[in-house]
């Protein structure tokens, strides 16, 4: 990232190759609408380019880019909620009952995605960043401007809810 801040575009391409799929995975777990995922991945990388002057030397890049993706997702969800579109728990529960895909792993992924989308947004964000992307509570807290304790509580509540929703599938969580 430091090379990119100094103007090396190839460094950005290397960052994109490494973090593009991860950002896509994060956003995909936060929202289920494919066109929204498309927009949010693009917004995240546009933000990286436009706000590279806000990147602090020596800072870990992963928490920074996930903070951007999380901020963009939160804002998009807020705007969508304002437009009163139908989203959230009802659709998530409906997705749990949807026909199973062909691949066996895909069925498990679908159940996890549906259970995740049933979580309140702050809990979902904490679980996804902590469990799926390996960020520490301290790193998540720094990106949200809150305390590690508050993030830990959100994640813990999220894990509890996932256990209830997923049953045996969730044994490995936390």
């Amino acid at each position, binding site marked *: 990232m430091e090379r990119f801040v100094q103007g090396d*575009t190839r460094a950005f391409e290397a960052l*994109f190759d490494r973090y593009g799929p991860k950002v896509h995975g994060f956003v995909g777990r936060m929202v289920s609408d494919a066109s929204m995922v498309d927009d949010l991945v*693009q917004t*995240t990388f*546009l*933000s990286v380019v436009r*706000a590279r002057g806000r990147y602090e030397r020596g800072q870990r890049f992963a928490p920074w880019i996930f903070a951007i993706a999380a901020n963009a997702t939160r804002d998009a969800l807020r705007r969508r909620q304002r437009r009163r579109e139908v989203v959230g728990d009802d659709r998530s529960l409906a997705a749990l009952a949807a026909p199973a895909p062909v691949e066996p792993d895909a069925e498990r992924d679908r159940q996890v995605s549906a259970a995740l989308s049933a979580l309140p947004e702050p809990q979902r964000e904490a679980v996804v960043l902590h469990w799926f992307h390996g960020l520490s509570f301290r790193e998540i807290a720094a990106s949200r*401007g809150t305390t590690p304790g508050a993030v830990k509580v959100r994640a813990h509540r999220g894990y509890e809810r996932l256990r209830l929703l997923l049953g045996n599938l969730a044994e490995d969580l936390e």
Partner: protein
Amino acid sequence: MTPAAQRHQTLARARAAALAECAARPWVIPWRWMGLGLVGAGALVAWGVAAALGASWPGGVVPALTLALLAGTHALALWLALAPRRTPGRWLLIVSVGILAMAAVIFTSNDHPHLPFTTKGASCGMLELALSVVPAALGLLALRFAAPSPMRAAMVGLGSGAVGVFVLYLECSPNAAHVGLFHVVPWLFVVGISVALQRVIPPRSYAP
């Protein structure tokens, strides 16, 4: 379309858009330069207007400390509004300094205690708002490069409003009622309007 193909398409589109943005804007302003520019612009406005009005520097330790608190609120609030790291402790610090500065300007204003507090009220309020326009506008523009945050916008309002209150403290501080109503209330209004304006200004980035 399979999920893998869809993901590939999404990533290809994001990469193309990001590279086009890199080509369109090959240079970037570090946030510290933005912060310095913002604090400097506010100081320049305060100095220029105070000089134009012929304001005199008050003698004594208490007015000097009050002015130092106002200048500190201006610099600290604008700097922390732009700083990428956000912690509850930093917000608490600047809110405390801001409240202290507001209390100081109210309780150390006693040049003309018997003058009706409404004297020159409207002109003071208007001057406070007018002096806040430039720093607040620049601050909100700079904030477009960070994720929308009401707290950051409030900090921009707090720092920008301090410019007007600083000049007014040099020019007019008859009594606590006047200063509270026509200097500090417009300052709080600037904080509120900054928060409201940021909600309607589309962000250019969602960086911390």
